[in-house]
């Protein structure tokens, strides 16, 4: 029996309102946290083993402990830009239980000594932003936000900022630039946001799901929370399953569950008569795994050992009726479109990968183009300020490596078809 934490009461009517949330025990964890010393609270977060749920999986408590002590203005920023293809868990959390996130933000801000906080939500999520705005107003009215948080004397402001459509703003420093009113271009690191983030102040920046877990960690205690899941991957995780499955959606699982049980058990597997061809275990940026990897445990370390990454926890299943060339081209097109253009390897690499895949698709490529494409990917990885380019290079490399035969067959078939068409036109 998996513990339900983040999704507890998620379909309760009115959970998005503060009255229902409080009646369900909401904001009790905040009161507990406010009675705890901030340093002790950070130890609890460290002890919980909670790793960031946005994609990188960095230990949350450790990140919080990097925020310097002192009287300077500090910030907490919530990354609600959720733009990784295949990922839609934060959307459901914000839409159905916005106060859980707000409570988490207040706990985090208290732990690191921040007095200003922002939720940066992607512009497309208009319905969710409206719900968050209303919830923030309720939290102000009830005294959970403002000059005297829940009577503790601590001050905290919270504002919901809407983006305007850019994948790169999910990258934390790109997000900070966007929040400061500029183009969302990633920054050179170090300095990391913990030292010089928003407006150059120390900034704790975390994903929606990560912060939504905080009230539960405070409520359960570090020991109980860290006992959920497996070593190095503690707690529950929301996974978004989509693509060729019968029951797409968000599911809360205990980390370590078998991938087969998720894809077949929870999501019902591919449509009748179809088989899993390959799957992305952590959003479109993760190297693809095949049907042979279905028994891998779904946790940070096991997925890494299988050669991919847990990423944002978004599983995209592709069945055997689909062409790997089409999926690869869609993917490259996305990253070429979203590259911010700041670093050359990413700007040019994504662009040329898309063009080369276009040639594969329309039959003007040669098998040598596959080698060129694979070498382009190696020249992107690790050579840019952020990992957007890597996020295309890794899955594209994995698709070429694992389905090379299909790419070659497609090139031959498309070229033959193009030749026939040319002869037909000439004749």
């Amino acid at each position, binding site marked *: 029996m998996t513990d339900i934490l983040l999704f507890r009461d998620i379909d309760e009517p009115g959970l998005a309102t503060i009255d229902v949330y409080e009646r369900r025990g909401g904001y009790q964890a905040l009161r507990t946290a406010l009675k705890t010393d901030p340093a002790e609270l950070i130890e609890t977060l460290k002890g919980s083993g909670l790793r960031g749920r946005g994609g990188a999986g960095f230990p949350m408590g450790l990140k919080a402990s990097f925020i310097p002590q002192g009287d300077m203005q500090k910030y907490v920023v919530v990354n609600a830009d959720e733009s990784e293809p295949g990922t839609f868990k934060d959307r459901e959390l914000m839409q159905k239980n916005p106060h859980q996130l707000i409570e988490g933000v207040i706990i985090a801000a208290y732990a690191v000594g921040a007095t200003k906080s922002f939720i940066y939500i992607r512009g497309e999520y208009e319905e969710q932003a409206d719900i968050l705005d209303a919830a923030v107003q309720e939290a102000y009215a009830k005294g959970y936000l403002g000059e005297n948080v829940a009577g503790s004397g601590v001050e905290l402001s919270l504002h919901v900022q809407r983006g305007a459509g850019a994948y790169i703003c999910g990258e934390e420093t790109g997000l900070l630039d966007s929040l400061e009113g500029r*183009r969302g271009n990633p920054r050179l690191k170090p300095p990391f946001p913990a030292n010089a983030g928003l407006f150059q102040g120390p900034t704790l920046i975390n994903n929606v799901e990560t912060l939504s877990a905080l009230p539960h960690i405070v409520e359960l205690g570090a020991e109980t929370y860290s006992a959920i899941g497996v070593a190095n991957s503690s707690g529950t995780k929301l996974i978004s399953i989509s693509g060729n499955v019968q029951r797409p959606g968000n599911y809360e699982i205990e980390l370590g569950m078998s991938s087969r049980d998720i894809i077949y058990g929870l999501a019902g597997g591919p449509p009748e008569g179809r088989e899993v061809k390959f799957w992305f275990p952590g959003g479109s940026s993760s190297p693809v795994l095949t049907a042979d990897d279905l028994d891998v445990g779904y946790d940070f370390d096991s997925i890494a050992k299988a050669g991919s990454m847990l990423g944002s926890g*978004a599983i995209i299943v592709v069945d055997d009726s689909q062409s790997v060339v089409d999926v690869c081209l869609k993917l490259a097109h996305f990253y070429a479109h979203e590259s911010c253009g700041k670093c050359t390897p990413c700007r040019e690499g994504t662009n040329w990968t898309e063009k080369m895949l276009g040639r594969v698709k329309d039959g003007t490529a040669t098998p040598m183009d596959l080698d060129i494409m694979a070498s382009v990917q190696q020249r992107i990885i690790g050579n840019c300020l952020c990992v957007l380019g890597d996020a295309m290079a890794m899955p594209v490399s994995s698709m070429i490596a694992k389905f090379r035969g299909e790419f070659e067959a497609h090139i031959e078939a498309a070229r033959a078809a193009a030749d026939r068409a040319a002869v037909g036109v000439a004749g």
Partner: protein
Amino acid sequence: MSDVQRFEHGSRVPGWDDAADLTKDPAVIPDPQTTPVPAELRTQIEAEMARYPAGRERAATIPALWAVQRHYGWCTPEGIVQAACVLEMTPAELIAVATFYDMFETRPVGRNTVYVCTNISCSLCGADELLAALRDEIGEDPDVNLRGFECLGACDIAPMASVNGAYIGPISLDEVPELARQIREGAEPLPAKRLVLRPSADPKVSASTPEDA
């Protein structure tokens, strides 16, 4: 060897025909004396500026551009100059921001915004066919701004669309004529397919609620 294809202005890339006029002074922050700003727009932008620490008011560029787009239907040149005047920035700084983000329109568009997600999960479920069908059905309606869009974060209701901000899906091809009519008439699009009404997919959640209640 074939000749390199060139555009009329001689360049191999489009859009480089407007060379900078070096005889003109650089654009400056618009003068409030000579730049009338609609009161409603000014109020909205100033309210956004107040949310940021003193001296950091320029952080309000994105909310300011949203205000311009709401007011004029798109980010018009005069709207950008007006926002720049309130924000005390040059119009070029605002144009740089407006052209970066997909949701800001820097050309006139229809007031009804329809995004159809064409990213991986949606395209696996027929999004390209949905976009083509909707394009055929809507035709050249000047009031509708129909675009294929990158992942909208709703792969659970693939294939889906966002109609003036409201997420709907999964949309079958049979529903396209009805949806097109609703978009044209300003009616609520496919009310039964609204994402906000959709219960959680996780069976444990529905199982847990009654016993907790």
